[in-house]
């Protein structure tokens, strides 16, 4: 994302220079970006990650209602990830796929018709703007929800936090592990 700024804004490029190098970094970091995730998903070590992905895939009707009401309709038993978090992870996955495809069309342009290249540029620009907004929002929300942020680094949440924010998940974990406090999967 950082390397996109000098490529897109000439004011930044004036300041940074070395466009060819930055363009290469931008291309190749983009290409390898999904690799660690795919390796983690594919291997035998990816069981818990795959379970989290399945969580993001499966939605209850209540979660969809919550999303449609933009969070105004209360959610009785939130899952480990609330619908907003699920949506964010899905958006990220979709973004990686679309950015990789459109970026490749621009980079290896001789294999694609001109109108596709124009469309790919259009996609890449519009989606990049959306990503910028979402990532800024993501960071803001993370910084204002310290307990959730800490859980990402430490890998656990307190039972009282889970009670408040992920009641459904707490129930489910308690049912499967007796009375052990739940741990997150990170």
């Amino acid at each position, binding site marked *: 994302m950082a390397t996109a700024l000098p490529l897109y804004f000439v004011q930044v*490029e004036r300041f940074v*220079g070395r466009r*060819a190098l930055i363009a290469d970094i931008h291309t190749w970091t983009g290409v390898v970006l999904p690799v660690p995730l795919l390796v983690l998903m594919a291997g035998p070590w990816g069981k818990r990650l795959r379970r989290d992905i399945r969580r993001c895939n499966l939605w209850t*009707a209540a*979660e969809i209602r919550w999303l449609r009401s933009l969070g105004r309709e209360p959610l009785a038993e939130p*899952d480990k990830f609330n619908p907003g978090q699920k949506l964010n992870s899905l958006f990220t996955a979709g973004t990686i796929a679309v950015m990789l495809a*459109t970026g490749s*069309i621009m980079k290896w342009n001789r294999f694609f018709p*001109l109108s596709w290249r124009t*469309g790919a540029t259009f996609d890449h620009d519009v989606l990049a703007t959306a990503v910028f907004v979402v990532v800024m929002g993501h960071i803001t929300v993370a910084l204002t929800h310290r307990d959730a942020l800490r859980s990402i680094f430490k890998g656990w949440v307190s039972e009282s936090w889970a009670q408040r924010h992920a009641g459904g998940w707490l129930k489910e974990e308690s049912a499967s592990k007796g009375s052990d406090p739940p741990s997150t999967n990170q």
Partner: protein
Amino acid sequence: MASGQPRPENVLKHFGRRIFIGMVAAGAAGIVFGARVQSVVGNTIGSGAGGLLPGGDRFRIYTITGHLPSIPSSNYRLKVTGLVERPLDLSLEDLKAMPKTTLVKDFQCVTGWRVPKVHWEGVRLSDVLAAAGVKSSAAALAFDSYDGMDTESLTLDQAQLPDVIVAYRMFDAPITDEHGGPVRLYVAPMYGYKSIKWLSAIHVVERAEPGYWEQNGYPVDAWIDGSHKNAERSIDQ
């Protein structure tokens, strides 16, 4: 019992997959139809304002060296050398004293972005060549840039096209340094990389050599796909 099995009540399966596939489908639709959407948007709000929106019609400023070259127009010289009767060393004023050509044409990059209806002013490349007097043994041109790295080539036939110009004005103003000013080439019927920026020299030679972008994988035959190409070729004949 399988841990992580979602709560049984009311599970709508694969809503996530649906969102993901929807995004990918929207992306694919954008690739196929984005060009049309963009031209409609551009025509509605004008390409000036369109350039401010993401995905709008705007230039991407490419440089291949470490920095943006900046050449004061008072120091500018264009050398015409090689297989010519009279080698030239032209200042910006010399170029402006030659017959002026005005074009309103799109700038089309090989990666896909396009800036429609750019206003260009300059001298036809064929007029510059006529002033130097091309020898009969010549068949191609090699161009150099003040960035010290970029090179380009055209055949003499291509150089005779009426919409291939040595440009010194763009958008009704002197060409800025980010657009390759004070003087750049503008080859309307070909992709933008042929329109070398910060033009410093034209060498008249026997054979076209691949330029910088062509050595980096872009085709030497840079005719823009579709209507442009056909329109320009009909002028050629």
